[in-house]
């Protein structure tokens, strides 16, 4: 089963003619993801890696009505419009690779998505992979192997190291989800944890958070209700105040966003806290009795 994407879904790529999007279209196709169409206004009739390009999402869906998932690779100033266009055309899951989308733009897009029950992942997500089934985004396939552990993280590279350590310990992933590094995100930890809780192919979840914002704290009460174990790894314990650490969202503002707050909230609600990356596989094994 896996979550969000599997080997049956049909996807489209918005901004497909961009350099990065075109390259990763090639990688996604090679992984087996079904990409049925791409969209770049003004470039209808072209193809990218054999994928037909359309001017609008609506045109694309007229030809490929089964497409449910779109990944968005357009520059940040066009991201809000691309998301709204996908929602309007009837796409149900939108994976936003674009980073540093203006805060107000993302808030509005998020609001519209909620109204239509559309799931947004990102912005600034490295994507989603259900190992052996499908990949949407730019996660490196080499870091992932099929298995029964779900992962959800704000950072791409941390996701790779976590999956890497799970693989070395013989575990592997059901699905790995990058939530994204932007300050305003579509789906949050709670949304993705909910999907893993219901997924019959997931036994436990590793969540990795980082300083900034309150998404980790917000997920804590939900973890308490979950039947599956959640292993949490929070980075930024040694981070300085008030400095943005690379990701637009990774900044401690006042007392909000500290690693200590997040760890405290998660631990109180039953999450198993990993202090280091290397502890994660052992904690996972212990939690599922292996």
């Amino acid at each position, binding site marked *: 089963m896996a979550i969000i994407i599997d080997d049956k879904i049909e996807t489209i790529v918005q901004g497909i003619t961009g350099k990065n999007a075109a390259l990763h279209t090639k990688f996604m196709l090679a992984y087996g993801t079904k990409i049925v169409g791409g969209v770049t206004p003004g470039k209808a009739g072209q193809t990218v890696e054999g994928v037909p390009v359309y001017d609008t999402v609506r045109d694309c869906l007229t030809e490929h009505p089964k497409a449910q998932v779109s990944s968005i690779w357009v520059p940040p100033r066009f991201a809000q419009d691309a998301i709204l266009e996908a929602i309007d055309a009837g796409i149900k899951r939108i994976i936003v690779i674009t980073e540093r989308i203006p805060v107000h733009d993302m808030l509005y897009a998020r609001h519209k998505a909620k109204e239509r029950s559309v799931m947004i992942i990102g912005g600034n997500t490295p994507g989603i992979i259900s190992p052996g089934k499908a990949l949407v985004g730019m996660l490196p396939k080499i870091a992932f192997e099929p298995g029964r552990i779900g992962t959800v993280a704000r950072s791409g590279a941390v996701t790779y190291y976590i999956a890497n350590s799970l693989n070395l310990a013989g575990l592997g992933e059901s699905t790995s989800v990058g939530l994204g590094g932007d300050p305003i995100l579509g789906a949050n930890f709670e949304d993705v944890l909910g999907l893993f809780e219901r997924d019959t192919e997931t036994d436990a979840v590793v969540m990795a958070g980082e300083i900034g914002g309150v998404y980790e704290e917000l997920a804590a009460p939900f973890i308490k209700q979950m039947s599956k174990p959640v292993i949490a790894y929070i980075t930024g314990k040694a981070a300085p105040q*008030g400095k943005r650490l690379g990701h637009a969202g990774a*900044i401690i503002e006042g007392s909000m966003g500290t690693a200590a707050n997040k760890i405290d909230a998660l631990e109180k609600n039953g999450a198993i806290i990993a202090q280091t990356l290397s502890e994660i596989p052992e904690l996972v094994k212990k939690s599922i009795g292996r």
Partner: protein
Amino acid sequence: MRLYEYEAKRLFARHGVPVPPGVVVEADTYEELDKVTYPVVIKAQAFVGGRGKAGLVQFASNREEAEGKIAQMLGKKHSTHTINRVLVEKKMEMKNEFYLAAMVDRLEHRYMMMSSRQGGVEIEQVAQAKPNAILKYHFNVGDIMPSFAARNIAAELGFHGQLLNDGTEIVERLYRLFTGYDCKVCEINPLVVTSDDRLFALDAKVDLDEDAMFRHAQLREMGITARHEVGELTEREKMAKKAGIPYVDLDGDIGVFPGGAGFGIAAIDLIKHYGGEPANFMDSGGAPTQEKLRSMLGLLLDNPRVKAIFGARFGGISRCDDWAKAVVQYVIENRPRKPMIMRMAGNMEQEGRKIIEEAKREHPEFFKKIKVYAYDMPIEDVIRETIRAAQAEHSEQ
């Protein structure tokens, strides 16, 4: 991206939020002091909390006194901030102080107006001591604020008569400014009622979304461009910024040469966890060019405090062979003497390994202290070895 108070007040004035009449004075613009009405308040323009206690807000009753006090303030350093300019304003006779702000509520993902009759103190303090003294009003993103909602806010602040109408206008204008300029926060604290029953924003805090600066030509015209959030940059941070590298100086001796931002944050934690002290945070971005990778190494190796480098590359979007080429070229050109303990895994790992081995054979003397581990070496063992290498460097000196 915080604005200085004088910038925020210029923005307020431009959009009809009344501010006290005042001028900005720098070291070579004392003649501005002829344009103000005395007595005045002199406020240092710096992002320092508690300016009053730090002596960064002063009063003067005439030009001579003002000049003396300004001369003392300018050029002074407060933590990392140098005071380069002061805002000199007519001192207002006030009866009451209020709080009013428009902001993004990141919990609700909506816009929020916050108001309180307890103005003039840190709102966080009010929130702790008397949470009921703060009123919050939420608005859906994309909705306009109806006038009646602004009127309700003004009425709940206790305004009557002409003050109610004036207050309503300020609420509406602040909200328009907040949405119109992509602000994260627009705060007036205090909003004061003067002895002649007029409203003024005595202080102004505006936090802009720097990712939306591209659509605000007016701000650029006012000289407001993207800048660091807090404080001033160190020399190395400035160099990094020029090279397009997110970089933050820390106090330790282990240079961190990571891949992406998320792992950069994890790396500084792990170094501390194992008893080391990181010298920096850095982010290479998704697929850095070889030139960028070399500038990253230069930033670390030119720093005299750095005793050893921890490097990590998980080739996903990026390629290990590109990374290896950049490292080899940097080492051959600059012959660093500091230990560099690194791990390279993922995309094009074998090709990368060949490049490193070849360079080692050709220039063994340059690579004596350089190690590049592979996929099977746990990343945390690499960190521990770097910490030991840094300690060894200290004892050698």
